C-alpha cells in the first residue's frame, strides 16, 4: 500500500501534511498487534489529528448505509475518531494525519516512548520526516522515495485536481469528484469545509488530509 507516498505536490505543499502510520509485518509481529494498533490510535487523538483511519473500515468520516433525507440540510461533518478506534478489529495499517509539524513531532516522540514494537512510518516531505526523527532522537531506518508520475501523464488532470485526488492513494477520490468540488466551491454552492467532507468519506483508509484539502480549495477560490 503506497497510498500516502505518491501525493502530488512539491515539498512546500506538504508543510501541513504529516501522515504517521503503524503497521505490523505479516508473519513476523502481527499476531498480537491489535491492542498495540489500538493504542497507537488512542495516543494519536491526544495530538489533535485531522484524520485517523485504518485499512479495513476507513477514516473518521464515513459514508452512511442508512442516511436520513433530513441529512441533506443538516449533515454531521464532525470526524468521529472514537469510531475508528472502536471499529478496529483486525491488524491492519493504522494512520494518523496531522496538519502541522509540531503535532507530528510530539506524537512520534511519544510513540517512541510507548515502545509498541510496530513499524512506524512518516509520510511527508523528506525534510519534514527528518525533522520529526531528529526531534525524537531517532535515526531513520529506511526511506522510500517517491519519484512521481511518469508514462502517459497527458491522461492526468490539472495540478489542483491531482493534489486533491492523490490524497487517497488508493484512488477512491475520483478526479471528477475533486474537479466538481473545486467548481462548487468556486461557485459558492458548497463551503470548502463541506466539500472536504464529501471527498474524505470516499477515502477507505482514513489518510485523506482534510486540512490540506481545505487549503487547496480555498486557494482555488483565490485563483492560486
Amino acid at each position, binding site marked *: 500500500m503506497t497510498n500516502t507516498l505518491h501525493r502530488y505536490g512539491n515539498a512546500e505543499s506538504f508543510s501541513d501534511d504529516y501522515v504517521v502510520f503503524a503497521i505490523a509485518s505479516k508473519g513476523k509481529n502481527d499476531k498480537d498487534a491489535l491492542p498495540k494498533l489500538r493504542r497507537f490510535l488512542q495516543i494519536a487523538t491526544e495530538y489533535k489529528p485531522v484524520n485517523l483511519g485504518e485499512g479495513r473500515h476507513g477514516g473518521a468520516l464515513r459514508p452512511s448505509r442508512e442516511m436520513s433525507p433530513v441529512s441533506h440540510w443538516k449533515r454531521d461533518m464532525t470526524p468521529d475518531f472514537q469510531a475508528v478506534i472502536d471499529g478496529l478489529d483486525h491488524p491492519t495499517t493504522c494512520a494518523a494525519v496531522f496538519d502541522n509539524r509540531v503535532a507530528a513531532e510530539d506524537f512520534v516522540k511519544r510513540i517512541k516512548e510507548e515502545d509498541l514494537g510496530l513499524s512506524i512510518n512518516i509520510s511527508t516531505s523528506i525534510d519534514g520526516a527528518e525533522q520529526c526523527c531528529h526531534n525524537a532522537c531517532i535515526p531513520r531506518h529506511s526511506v*522510500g522515495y517517491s519519484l512521481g508520475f511518469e508514462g502517459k*501523464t497527458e491522461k492526468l488532470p490539472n495540478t489542483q485536481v491531482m493534489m486533491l485526488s492523490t490524497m487517497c492513494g488508493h484512488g477512491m477520490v475520483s478526479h471528477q469528484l475533486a474537479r466538481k468540488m473545486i467548481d462548487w466551491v468556486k461557485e459558492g454552492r458548497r463551503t470548502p469545509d463541506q466539500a472536504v467532507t464529501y471527498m474524505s468519506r470516499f477515502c477507505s483508509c482514513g489518510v485523506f488530509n482534510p486540512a490540506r484539502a481545505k487549503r487547496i480549495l480555498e486557494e482555488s477560490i483565490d485563483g492560486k
Partner: protein
Amino acid sequence: MMAPAREIAMRINPDKCVACGNCTYVCPMEAIYIDPVIKRATIKRDECVECYACYNGLSQEHLNPTFVRAVRKTFAALRIRFEPEPDVCPTAAFEPDELTWPRVVRRAFSDPRVPHESTGVEGRGTEEVKTNDVSGRVQVGEVGFTIEFGRPGVGVRFREIQVMCTALAKAGVAFEKKNPVTSLMTDVPTGTLREDILNEKVMSAIVEIKVPVERTEEVIRLVWDIEKKLNTVVALGVGTRCDPDGEERVVAPILARLGYKLERAKTNIGLGRVAAAPQSAASRETVNA
C-alpha cells in the same frame, strides 16, 4: 430459448436508479454514465474495475424511486434546481455481485478493503520498506523498487503490466515473491502472467523488485524505456536502507543525477521488532534472483 446469462459484475438496479448522476462523478474510472435511451445510470462493464467506490463510498438513502422521479420531474418542469448532497445514492441502487474468476481479479487489485489472498495485506497487497525494520527485506547495499501502474485514475490492464515484467525479467532482476502481481505469474523467470487475466483492467498494481544499489540507474532507465510503450501512468518508488546515523547518502544522489527532484518520501523510523515467539508464516523471499 434460454435467456443469456447475466454478466456477474457490479450493477445498478434500473428499477431503483433515478438518474440523479451522483455516481457518474465518483467513479474513479469514469465508467458510469447516464444512458439517454433508458434514462438510467449505466456501467461500462469493460471499464469498471470493481473498486466498489460507488457502493462503499456513496452514502445510501432508501427513498422510494417513484417518489424521487416524480419530485425530480416536478422540479425540472418548474426550472428549479434541486441540489442534493453529491455523495449520496438516493435509492441505494448499487447491487454488487459475487464475482468469479477472472473478473474477481479486478476487485482484488482495486478495492483497498479486500486483502490480497497471496499476501494477506490490504490495499495493494505489499509491505515494501514500511516493515523493513522487521522484515529486513531491503538490506544495506540493496534498492527495492515499487513500480506502480494505473494510478491515479487511469487504470491498467495486465497485458501492459506484462510488458514491463518481461523486460525486467530479461534484465535478470529479482521479483518480490510475496507480491500480488508476482503471484499471478505462470513463469516468474520470464515475467509471464496468466493468460486468462491479461485483458482484465484494474485500478492499479505494483510490481516489486530488488536489485543491488549499483543497478539503480540501469533499472530506472529500463523503466523509462518501457513506460513509453504503455498506455497508462507509472509511479516509481525507490526504497533503501539508511546508514546507522539515519542518513541516506547513496541512492538520493543517484536519483538527483538522473534529474529527479525528491519532494516526498515514506520514512521507516525503525521502531518495529519481531515478536518474541516466532510466527509460522513464511518470511519474505525473492525469486528469479
